[in-house]
C-alpha cells in the first residue's frame, strides 16, 4: 500500500515535471487551447490598414473554434494595438511573447513597423505569420521563422503593375512614383524585373511619404511624356498626385497600387470624380471589395460584427486580407499534427501551398520563398462603379541570395 503510494507519487511528480518541461518548450499550448498573439493598427491614422483585418482574422479563428478547433484544441487569441508604429509594434510583440506566452504570432499591417520586430522574433524562434503587411525586409533574406505577404509582397506589387500597364494598356514608357524609403526600394526592385522583360522604360520619381506639394515630381514625370503613371505610394501622397494630375490636365491612365487604396470612397471625396476619368486600381483579391466572389467573407463579417457592419465605410477595404493569414496559421497547426511544436509548425509552413479563395493568387511558400502571394487583378474605377478587368497579373521577381 505504502509502496503503491510512493510509486503513484513519483509517477505524478514525473508527469508533472514532464508536462512542465513540455510547457517550457512549447509556450501557449495546453490540452485544450493554443494561444496566439494578434497585433495590428487598431487606432491612429493608419488604422484603416489593419483594424478590420484584425477583425477578419478573429472571426476566422472563432469559426474554426465553433467547428471544433484544431485536433481538439481551441484557438485562444490575445490582441494588441501596434498603431503601425515600429516602437509600439515591437512592444506589442514582446508583451505577447514574454507576458502572454503565446505559441505563435499573427499580426502586422505596416511594412516598416513589422521589419523592426525581425531580430527579436528570429532570436526568440517564435513562428510569425504577418497579417497584411508586405514586410519584405522581414521576409527576405528568408529566415526559418517569418512568413508573410499573404496580401502581396512589395516586390510583387510594382512588378504586377508594370505587367498590367504593358500588357493591358500597351504602355512603353511608364512614369513611376514610389516612396523614398525601403518600402519604395523593394517595390522598384520588383518593377525593374518586369519592365526589363516587357521592354518598358521606367521613369522614376521617389517622394517622401509626408510630401505636401507634389508639383515638382509630377511635372518631371509629365515631361517624360509617359503612356501611363503608376502610383505606388500610401493613400495621402497618391491622392495629392491624382489631384495634381487633374489640375494640370493629365488625361493618360493613372494606375494606383493596392497600398494607396485604404478607402476608395474617401479617395473620391478627396480628389473628385473628374480626376478619375482614366483611373485603375490594383487589387490583390479575386474580386473587387464587396464583389460577388467575396460574398461569404462579407456575410461572415456581418454576422460576427453587426454593429460595425451597420456603420458607414465598414467593413474597411482591406478587411478580407485577414482571412488568408488566419487560414495559413490554422492549416499549419493542422498539418503539424495532434502534438504541435513550433518546429513542426514551421516545417509545415515551408511546404504550404493552398488556394485561399480570397486572394488573386495561391498562397505558396518554399525553401526560399517567404512571400505567399505575388498576383493581382486590376479594376477600372470611375468614382462610382468598380469594374474588374480580365486577367491575373503576376510579378516575376524571386529572391536570389547575393
Amino acid at each position, binding site marked *: 500500500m505504502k509502496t503503491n503510494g510512493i510509486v503513484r507519487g513519483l509517477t505524478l511528480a514525473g508527469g508533472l515535471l514532464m508536462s512542465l518541461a513540455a510547457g517550457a518548450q512549447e509556450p501557449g499550448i495546453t490540452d485544450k487551447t493554443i494561444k496566439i498573439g494578434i497585433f495590428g493598427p487598431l*487606432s*491612429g*491614422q493608419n*488604422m*484603416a490598414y489593419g483594424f478590420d483585418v484584425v477583425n477578419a482574422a478573429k472571426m476566422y479563428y472563432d469559426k474554426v473554434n465553433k467547428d471544433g478547433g484544431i485536433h481538439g484544441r481551441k484557438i485562444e487569441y490575445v490582441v494588441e494595438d501596434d498603431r503601425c508604429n515600429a516602437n509600439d509594434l515591437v512592444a506589442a510583440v514582446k508583451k505577447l511573447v514574454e507576458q502572454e506566452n503565446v505559441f505563435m504570432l499573427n499580426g502586422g499591417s505596416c511594412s516598416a513597423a513589422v521589419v523592426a520586430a525581425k531580430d527579436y522574433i528570429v532570436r526568440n524562434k517564435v513562428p510569425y505569420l504577418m497579417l497584411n503587411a508586405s514586410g519584405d525586409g522581414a521576409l527576405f533574406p528568408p529566415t526559418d521563422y517569418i512568413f508573410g505577404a499573404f496580401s502581396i509582397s512589395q516586390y510583387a506589387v510594382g512588378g504586377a503593375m508594370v505587367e498590367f500597364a504593358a500588357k493591358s494598356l500597351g504602355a512603353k514608357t511608364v512614369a513611376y512614383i514610389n516612396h*523614398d524609403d525601403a518600402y519604395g526600394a523593394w517595390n522598384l526592385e520588383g518593377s525593374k524585373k518586369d519592365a526589363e522583360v516587357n521592354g518598358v522604360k521606367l521613369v522614376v*520619381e*521617389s*517622394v*517622401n511619404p*509626408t*510630401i*505636401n*506639394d507634389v*508639383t*515638382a*515630381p509630377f*511635372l*518631371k514625370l509629365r*515631361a517624360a511624356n509617359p503612356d501611363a503613371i503608376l502610383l505606388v505610394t500610401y*493613400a*495621402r501622397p497618391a*491622392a*495629392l498626385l491624382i*489631384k495634381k494630375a487633374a*489640375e*494640370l*490636365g493629365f488625361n493618360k491612365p493613372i494606375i494606383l497600387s493596392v497600398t494607396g487604396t*485604404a*478607402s476608395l470612397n*474617401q479617395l473620391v*471625396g*478627396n*480628389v473628385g470624380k473628374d480626376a478619375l476619368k482614366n483611373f485603375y486600381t490594383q487589387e490583390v483579391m479575386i474580386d473587387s471589395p464587396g464583389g460577388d466572389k467575396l460574398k461569404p467573407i462579407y456575410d461572415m463579417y456581418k454576422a460576427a460584427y453587426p454593429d460595425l457592419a451597420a456603420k458607414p465605410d465598414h467593413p474597411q477595404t482591406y478587411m478580407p486580407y485577414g482571412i488568408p493569414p488566419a487560414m495559413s496559421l490554422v492549416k499549419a497547426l493542422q498539418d503539424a499534427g495532434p502534438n504541435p511544436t513550433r518546429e513542426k509548425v514551421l516545417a509545415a509552413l515551408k511546404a504550404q501551398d493552398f488556394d485561399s479563395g480570397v486572394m488573386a493568387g495561391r498562397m505558396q511558400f518554399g525553401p526560399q520563398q517567404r512571400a505567399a502571394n505575388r498576383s493581382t487583378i486590376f479594376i477600372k474605377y470611375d468614382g462610382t462603379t468598380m469594374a474588374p478587368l480580365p486577367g491575373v497579373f503576376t510579378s516575376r521577381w524571386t529572391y536570389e541570395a547575393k
Partner: protein
Amino acid sequence: MDLQLALIFLQQGIASGLVSGSVYALLALAIVIIFKTSDVPNFAQGEVFMAAGYVALYLFVFQQMPIWIVLPATLLAAFLAMALFRRVVLDQVAKSAKDLVYLVIATLGLSYVLKGLVRRTGFGDTPRSFPALVPTDSVMIGQASVTLLDLAIFGTAVAVMAAFFWMFNYTKTGRAMRAVGMNPKAAQLVGVDLRRCHMLIWGLSGVISAIAALLISPKILMTADMGSIVMLAFAAAIVGGFSSLPGAIVGGFIIGIVENMVGLFISSRAIVLAPFLAILIVLVLRPQGLFGGKLTIKKV
C-alpha cells in the same frame, strides 16, 4: 534638360513656391510674433494649425454649418484656445519656474494634447480634404499652371499679412505689442497690461494659424500629423531672422520656392532636405538670418 523645359520648370517652381510659401510665411509670422514677445518658440504652432483645420472640417463637413458661421467660429476657437493656454497654463508655469525652457516644454505638451484630442475624435484616422471654397480650375500665368484656389490662397495670405503689419505699425494695440517685444518692463511702466497683451498675441497667433489651415487644407489633405508642416515655418523664421516679422514672410516665400526648385532641378528625394539646406546656407553666411539685424553676442 533643354532650355524650354528649364524655363517652364522655373516659372512653375516660382508660382507653386509662392503659393505654398505664403502659407509657410503665415505660420512663420505666428511663430515670430510669439517669440518676439515671449522669447518662447511655440512648438505647438503646427498642432494649433492642425486642430483649427479639424474644427473647420467638423463644423463644415460633419455638421454642415454654413461657411459664414464656420470661418468666424474657427478663428474664434483658435483665438480663445491660444489666449487661454497663455493665461491658464503658461502664466502658471512661468510663476513656478523661472527658466524659459519650462515654457517651451509646456508648448510641447500642448502639441501632444491637441494631436491626442484630434485622434480621439476619429476624424484624423483617414486623410481628408477640406472642401475648397473657390473653384480649382487651372489658369496659365506665363507658362506656369496655377488654380484659382492657388491664387486665392496667395491673395488671402498676402492680405492677412498686410493687415497684421498695419495693426502692428499703426494701431495702439500693435505698438503696445511691439513695446512688450522690445522691453516688457519698460512697456509695463508706461501702462501696458502685460498679461492682456500676451493673451492677445497668443490669441492672434492662433488666428493666423487657423487662417493658414483654412487656406491650405483643401490642397494638402488633412491628417492628425499635418502639423509637421510647421518645420517649414520654423525654417522660414530662421532664414528670415527669428525676431523679424518681414523676415518671417520673406523666409516663407524663400522656403516655398527653394522646395520646388530643388524638386524640379535636383531631385524629388531632396525636397525634404531643401529647407534645411536653406537654413544651413543662411546660418553660415548670415547667422542672424536675412532680416535679423545686427548680430549680437551675449556674454555667459
